[in-house]
């Protein structure tokens, strides 16, 4: 009986952790489009001249991106109005996208 409880508990814990970690990871594909939309909208509003984001994913390492989002540095950069409108999930997705294509990632990317 004890064994069954331990196994069940283990399964529940694994599922919970995986859910938490997947939420923390975010959806990088969605993040890419949300990130582009931030700058497109910002450009349409006239704050920036180009719809190309100022910071490309490969502008920082993965650790630097983690710090950038932990310290909410994006609120100190361009397009604060758009960043403020984003949900927690949107921010998580953008974080996942930028970190996933950081300079020290297997697939560094540049915004075009």
């Amino acid at each position, binding site marked *: 009986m004890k064994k069954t409880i331990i196994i069940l508990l283990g399964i529940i814990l694994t599922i919970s952790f995986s859910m938490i970690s997947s939420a923390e990871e975010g959806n990088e*594909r*969605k993040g890419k*489009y949300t990130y582009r939309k931030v700058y497109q909208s910002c450009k349409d509003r006239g704050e920036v001249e180009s719809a190309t984001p100022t910071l490309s994913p490969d502008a920082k390492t993965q650790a630097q991106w983690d710090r950038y989002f932990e310290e909410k540095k994006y609120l100190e950069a361009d397009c604060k109005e758009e960043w403020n409108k984003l949900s927690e999930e949107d921010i998580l997705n953008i974080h996942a996208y930028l970190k996933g294509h950081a300079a020290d990632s297997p697939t560094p990317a540049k915004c075009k």
Partner: protein
Amino acid sequence: MKNKTFIMLFSTVLGAWLSVWQSDLCHAAQMGNEKRQTTTDHSKHKVLQQEFSTGDDITKACLSCHTETDSQFHKTIHWTWIAEEGEKQLGKGGDSLNNYCISSNKMNDKGCSKCHTGWNAKEGEVNCLLCHSQKEVNWDETFEDFRFFKEEGDDESKALAAELQGNIHKAVTDIGLPTRKNCGSCHFFGGGGDGVKHGDLDSSLTHPDKMLDVHMGTNGGNFTCFRCHSGKLHNIPGRIYSQKAYEDRRSLVEDDTISKITCESCHTATPHKENAKMNDHTDKVACQACHIPDFARVNPTKMSWDWSKSGRLKDGKPYKTKGPYDKENYLSIKGEMKWEKNVKPEYFWFNGSMSSLTTKDVIDPSTTVAVSQPNGNINDPDSRIFPFKIHHGVQPYDLEYKTLLAPLLSGKDGYWTTLDWQNALQKGMDFSGVPFSGKFDFVKSTFAYPTTHMVMPKANALACTECHVRTNSRLASFGELYMPGRDYYKEIDFGGWILVFGAFAGILLHGTLRFFSGKRK
């Protein structure tokens, strides 16, 4: 006398009429509205209103109307990447190499194949949109993301999938003749980056000023590439491996069905004002020699690349440094390189064809190896003095077989990942199907590129004294040619001066004698 006057008047009127007609022929579509040649609105075609999730599906839709296009296109060099020259197979799909990224390993280097005109290199259908869509789309990314979001199924994903399909639809239906941007998406980035390979082709020509190129300038002729590179059945003239880019030097005035590839096609062989001395040059000097005083006037171009210096590490890791023009001048994965702007061309006799080496040709490593060089000489009636960009390289060769080597660069086994020459050379030569002894070293090389774009307005053409001058003549190396101003014969000059002084002395003597002889009375 009356007859003579009439003939003179008639020839003047005829000349003026011909020049207007010729100007009309050449400038007919230069006003920037290329779309007027389109006879269909692609957004109205039902076959293009379906959902597309792969590139091949799009091409099948195109071919449902343009039924013969793929069979025509599959025969062109844009598809095969091969130019046959006797037993030699030149081209990126053949055995050719250069001294930039050296080789595409017969299209097995995936990095190079990005520029192939198929959706997936030579596999599958032709990507018609690469040249004909007026919208720029990253197709691989778009299709992958579209399929992903469609499968995800949540509201946000559905909205993103619809947005991506909208972009695909816009690109599929906004169809026209190729623009400078279409052609330039590959040709401006030859050698792996903006302006790397060609000194006269880079992204600055997407929206050029007429001072950069009088023909393509948006405030000048606003020519698209195909105004000169006008082909038949998707064969676009202009490629030079061994065959000439053009065979016909006649102008459209002489025959309006000929290709428009040369300057003479529109400007004729006597393009300058009547009796202008410059018209006497056109049988020996190419128009480009005077009308392209320098190249890489906006963006810098790569002038040298030393592969032997690659592989250095900093703190155990590959690194890169930047130099003038904010361009990389050292990369561990590529070696050392130099960039230049406003480069004066080098000049050679050129009959329109090039001699190029392949992985199978034996070289002499004790000299600088000319990987590609122009053909022509003073006695060849088709040869003209022509401007070139000469790119200097240091590249690997086989110590035993004395052949140039083609390393595999990209991918997990490529040099850019492993920094292991031995392995990269073996992999590359295996793809090339040419034996490699396993022993290699580096050899100096040159690669010549004809300079034919970035033509300046006529007021900015070279002055006569750039060449006809005693010192620092642009044509100083053309020893076989007598050029007034640059060359002289001491004996003839001495004789000339004797005649001048003699005549002067004679006048003086004559005047003095007359003065004193009293004949004036």
